C-alpha cells in the first residue's frame, strides 16, 4: 500500500475505524468540554479532518455553571470547575447541531443528568435528531453535587443510568468514566453489562490548589478537575485496567498532547483516543496528532491502526 497521507488528509484507509458502530475516518476525537460545539474552532481547524467531535455536555435545561474563578493552571496541567455550564438540550438541537451537521465528521453528543429520568429524556429527545452519531453518557463529571460523581462512583447507579439510556437510544452509547473511584474495573464491567457500546476514560481527577499568600483556594468552587499532561500516566494505567476488564471498545482520554501520547493509549489497548486540554494550548492539536499517528503507522510498516491496538509487548 502506498502512503498517501498528506494528499488525502484524514481519509487514509489505514486510519479508519469502527467504534461501537460509529464509523470514524481516524481514531482521534475532540473531547467534550474542550471543543465547545465545534463553531469556536472552525476558523482555525478543519473540522472535516477530525475523527469525531464530542460536544460540550448537555443537560435538559440550560445551566449557568459555577462562580468564577473557574480555572487555574498547575504543574503540567490545569484544574477546572466550570460546573457543566451549557445551553441546554433545546438550544443544542436548534442552534448547535445544524452547524455541526455540515461537516463530514461524526458528532457524539455528551449528556448528563441529575437523575436517571433526566438521562432517559435526553437520550429520547436526541434519538431522532439528524447529525448525531451517538451519545457519550457522562456519569463522571465531578463538578455538580447532584449528578456526576454519584452515578460514576457506584456500580449499581452506573448500571441503572446506562440501562435507562440504552433503552431509549437507538444509536450507540459510550459511557465516560470517572477516575475518582477505588476500582475502575467494577464500574467498567457494570456499564458493559448494562449495555454500553463502549467506554471512554478518564474524566478529570479531582484536585485543588491554594494561594499561600491569601490562604484562599484558587477556585471559587474550592475543588475542581485536573486535566492535561499531569494526568496522562494515571489515565494510561486506568485505560489499561479497563481494557483488561471489558470486551467493548475503550476510548483513551487524559493528557494527550502529542502523537506519541496517543500511541501510548492505543498500544495499551484503546481503539481510539480523545484529545482535551491540548485543544486549549494548540487549537490544531487533533489534526497534528492524526498526522503524527499516520506517519508512525507508515514508518513502522503497519497496514492498519487496528494492528497497533493492544499491541503492548509485555516481557
Amino acid at each position, binding site marked *: 500500500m502506498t502512503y498517501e497521507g*498528506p494528499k488525502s*488528509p484524514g481519509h487514509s484507509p489505514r486510519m479508519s475505524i469502527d467504534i461501537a458502530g460509529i464509523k470514524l475516518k481516524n481514531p482521534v476525537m475532540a473531547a467534550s*468540554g*474542550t*471543543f*465547545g460545539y465545534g463553531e*469556536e*474552532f*472552525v*476558523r*482555525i*481547524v*478543519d473540522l472535516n*479532518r477530525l475523527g469525531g467531535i464530542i460536544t*460540550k455536555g448537555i443537560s435538559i*435545561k*440550560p445551566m*449557568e*455553571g459555577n*462562580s*468564577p*474563578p*473557574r*480555572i*487555574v*493552571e498547575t*504543574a*503540567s*496541567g*490545569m484544574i*477546572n470547575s*466550570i460546573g457543566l*455550564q451549557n445551553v*441546554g438540550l*433545546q*438550544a443544542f438541537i436548534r442552534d448547535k447541531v445544524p452547524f455541526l451537521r455540515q461537516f463530514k465528521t461524526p458528532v457524539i453528543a455528551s449528556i448528563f443528568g441529575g437523575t436517571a429520568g433526566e438521562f432517559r429524556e435526553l437520550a429520547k429527545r436526541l434519538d431522532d435528531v439528524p447529525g448525531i452519531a451517538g451519545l457519550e453518557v457522562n456519569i463522571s463529571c465531578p463538578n455538580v453535587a447532584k449528578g456526576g460523581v454519584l452515578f460514576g462512583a457506584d456500580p449499581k447507579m452506573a448500571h441503572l443510568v446506562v440501562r435507562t439510556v440504552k433503552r431509549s437510544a437507538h444509536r450507540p452509547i459510550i459511557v465516560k468514566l470517572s477516575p475518582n473511584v477505588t476500582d475502575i474495573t467494577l464500574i467498567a464491567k457494570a456499564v458493559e453489562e448494562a449495555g454500553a457500546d463502549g467506554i471512554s476514560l478518564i474524566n478529570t481527577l479531582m484536585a485543588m490548589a491554594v494561594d499561600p499568600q491569601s490562604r484562599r483556594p484558587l477556585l471559587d468552587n474550592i475543588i475542581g478537575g485536573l486535566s*492535561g*499532561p*499531569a494526568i496522562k500516566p494515571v489515565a494510561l494505567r486506568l485505560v489499561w485496567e479497563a481494557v483488561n476488564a471489558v470486551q467493548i471498545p475503550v476510548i483513551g482520554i487524559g493528557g494527550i*498532547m502529542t502523537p506519541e501520547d496517543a500511541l501510548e493509549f492505543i498500544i495499551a489497548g484503546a481503539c481510539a483516543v480523545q484529545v482535551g*486540554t491540548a*485543544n*486549549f*494550548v*494548540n*487549537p*490544531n492539536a487533533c*489534526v*497534528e496528532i492524526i*498526522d503524527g499517528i499516520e506517519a508512525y503507522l507508515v514508518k513502522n510498516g503497519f497496514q492498519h491502526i487496528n494492528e497497533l491496538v493492544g499491541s503492548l509487548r509485555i516481557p
Partner: protein
Amino acid sequence: MNSYETIKDRSMNSSPSVAKEGGGPYLVCGTLLENPMVVSSYHKMRIRTPIPYEDIHPGQFVMVRISEEPFPLLRRPFSIHSLRELRTKEGSDIEILYKIVGKGTNLMASWKRGKRLDILGPLGKGFSLSINKGVQVLIAGGIGAAGLFALGQKMKALGLQCSVFIGGKTKEHILCVDEFRGLGADVHMATEDGSLGFRGMVSDMVRSFLHGLPDPSGLFACGPVGMLKSIAEIAKSQSIPCQVSLESRMACGLGACLGCVIRTKGERPVKSQGETRHEKGASYKRVCKEGPVFNSEEIDWRKI
C-alpha cells in the same frame, strides 16, 4: 522563504479557505523583533505577524504560547498594545506590553530577537468606536495602559480628541506617558504615593476632571478591578457611556473552555411551558468572546 509562515505547514494547509474570509482569529507564527525592558519588571515585545492589519481592533488580544513543554502549559493572553500595518500589506507588527508576574512572563522576558512565536489572535471583542465627537477620556491603571494605547492610536486616526489618565502605585508603575503624548493627547498622571503627578487614586482625578468638562463623550478604562469599579460608578452618576477592558484567567481564548466568565446583569433565557423567554437576571459572559471589553453597565460589579 517567507519570514512568517504559519506555525506548522500542516496548519497552513488546513486553513487557507478559512483565512480568506477575513476577521480571524488566526493561528500564526510571528517573529520577535525586539523585547526590551521599558521600566523595571515591564517589557515591551514587538512581533511581526501575518495577521491582516484590518482584522485587528483596539481592545482585542492575542494568546501567546509560552512553551512547547508541558509546563507552563497554557497560552497567556495579552492585549494588543499597539499595531502598525506592514508596508507590504502582508501583515502587521503588533506590540505587547507586559509585566513580569510569574513563570510564563519570566520566560517571555528572556526571549531574544528573531525567536519564532506561536500566536493566536486577534481574539475577543474590542472597543466600540461608535461614539460621539467630544473629549474621549482614557483611564489606565498600571499595566492597564497596555490595553488602551491601540485605542489612542485609532482615535488619533479618526481625529478624536483624547484625554489620558494614567495611574499607578508609584512613579515606577506609570506607563506609556510619552507614547500617549506622541499621539497629541493631554496626559494626566496620578500615583498613590505622590511620587509623580496627582497624589491619590486616578479615579478621583478623573472625577474632578469630568466636573469641569463641558462635553465628555466616553470613558474607556483598563486596569485593576477596584479602579474599574470606581470608574464605572463615576460613569453611571454622570451618565457618560463607559467601556471597560477586563482580565480573567483563561485557557483557550476561543470561547470553548468557559473558564474566563464574569458575572453580568444581562438577560438570560428561561424556559417555561415549552417556551423560551428572556428574563432579566444574572448570567455569565466569556471575557474572551463577549469581552474583554464590556459596557460598564453590563457588569455585575458586586460579583467581581
